């Protein structure tokens, strides 16, 4: 035991470490074991990489992986830009009134399942927008309306996330702005910086930690999310977690180790992407500790 080992400190940390150690690390380890040839219900008991090898030859996995990366990246990017713009636009209003925060709060507290359901009512080809277009004489039948749900571009999925994540990123940014105050910007103004210069060299670096960490959370969340693509996606290609879930719960138990392998792979990939993102933003923005949580 090291000389300065502090029992009290580790005692205080132990409940959290126990939860993470058993449920997350333990769960992940057990999942990895099951995907590596130790899936007891099928009588497997020897190390094998065949479930991973099968993923490499699986066209559905490639299509699904590409779709997942694409939709998560697009939705995150739109949410980050939109959230930042919204925060800056509402900054003055937010300082004066709490209503802004409250309003941004609403979409945040709407669970994804409810959001997906509400979206269908609005943007489906026979939804309210299409009916308004029909009433205005713009379209003759539902099929004339652009496909926004279960569509090939994943527009419905992206829209559902953007509606929820823009307010999230805006609120994170507003919280940081409120803590920082506007002294730096005032100083820059006094020194004769233009509006653009103040944004580029003062405000942006100030809010970058909030935007970077929030968008990382958003990306990781969308990458692993299930409900929205389950309801608004297509049967093929489907997002990774939908494919993994369907295979896991397939009536044929033989599918299960492969499903677990897919989930483990997706965990490793997201961890790697998060690490790369943090390295990249550190290099570009010089952020040391991007987490404001």
């Amino acid at each position, binding site marked *: 035991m090291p000389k300065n080992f502090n029992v009290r400190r580790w005692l205080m940390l132990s409940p959290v470490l126990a939860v993470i150690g058993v449920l997350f690390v333990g769960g992940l380890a057990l999942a990895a074991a099951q995907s590596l040839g130790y899936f007891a219900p099928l009588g497997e008991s020897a190390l094998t990489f065949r479930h991973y090898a099968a993923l490499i030859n699986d066209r559905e996995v490639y299509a699904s992986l590409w779709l997942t990366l694409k939709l998560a990246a697009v939705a995150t990017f739109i949410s980050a830009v939109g959230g930042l713009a919204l925060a800056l636009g509402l900054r003055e209003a937010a300082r004066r009134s709490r209503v802004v925060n409250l309003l941004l*709060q609403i979409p945040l507290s709407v669970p994804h399942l409810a959001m997906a359901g509400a979206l269908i009512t609005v943007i489906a080809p026979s939804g309210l927008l299409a009916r308004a277009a029909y009433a205005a004489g713009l379209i003759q039948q539902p099929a004339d309306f652009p496909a926004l749900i279960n569509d090939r571009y994943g527009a419905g999925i992206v829209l559902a996330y953007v509606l929820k994540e823009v307010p999230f990123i805006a609120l994170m940014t507003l919280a940081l702005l409120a803590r920082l105050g506007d002294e730096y910007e005032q100083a820059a103004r006094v020194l004769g910086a233009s509006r653009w210069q103040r944004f580029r060299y003062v405000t942006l670096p100030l809010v970058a930690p909030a935007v970077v960490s929030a968008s990382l959370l958003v990306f990781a969340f969308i990458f692993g999310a299930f409900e929205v693509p389950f309801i608004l996606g297509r049967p093929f290609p489907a997002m990774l977690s939908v494919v993994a879930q369907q295979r896991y719960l397939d009536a044929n138990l033989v599918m299960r180790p492969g499903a677990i392998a897919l989930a483990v792979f997706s965990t490793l990939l997201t961890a790697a992407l998060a690490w790369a993102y943090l390295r990249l933003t550190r290099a570009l923005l010089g952020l040391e500790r991007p987490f404001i949580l």
Partner: protein
Amino acid sequence: MIAVSGVAVIPLLLLAARSLAQSWFWPSLLPPVWSIRAWQYVFSPTAEVFPALTTSLTIALAVTLLAVTVSLPAARVLAWQEFRGKRAVIFALLLPVLTPPLAATMGVHALFLRYGLTDTLIGVALSHLISTVPYATLMLTGSFSRFDPDYEAQARTLGADGFDVWRHVTFPAIAPGLAVAASFAFLISWSQYLTTLLIGGGRILTLPLTLVAFQRGGDEAIAAALSLVFLAPAAAAAFSVARFLKEEPVGKI
């Protein structure tokens, strides 16, 4: 500002209209017939909605309490102390936040099967800790780190004992953060679908599971009414901590 309120409120109004509409077919912009049939079903004692609501609330409240209790001491240490291994602890907390929970949940499923925890309320609640505890700890760490531990020391020099210090000095200072972390944990647990499905085996029926059953097989008016029932406690949790909102956003991503 108006646009923001529009985006925020319109979906709720639409769900309300949908839950009261009957035979609302293309191309009518307004429902031809209004009916409270869906709401009657939702509130009827024979429907599975009420038990699902109680199950969801029980699990979410238990998870919130557990997550906050477990996180408080750790957050205090992480915010105020520098020590070897701290980075590793932070890393361990970030991993569940930055990676999809599905793989770990599958492992937990196998683990719980062995100990008879699948299909039980306790098993489901425990599995919800995977996603709630890291968030709660990280958020509370933020709250503690904005509070100067010297205040505690000063209070102690003035003769206050440990409990008094907590009650009169530390707690009031971190209360906003605590409320926000708690409502965050509540919302995460409340909205959980896939984890509950896997660990609860369809036996522990929470509101999200009931809602999906109706979204996929039931009728649209009931699904809309259920959506509103589903988001009401979530909104209530968010609004009840509204006065602390300057500090942190409340709500699941």
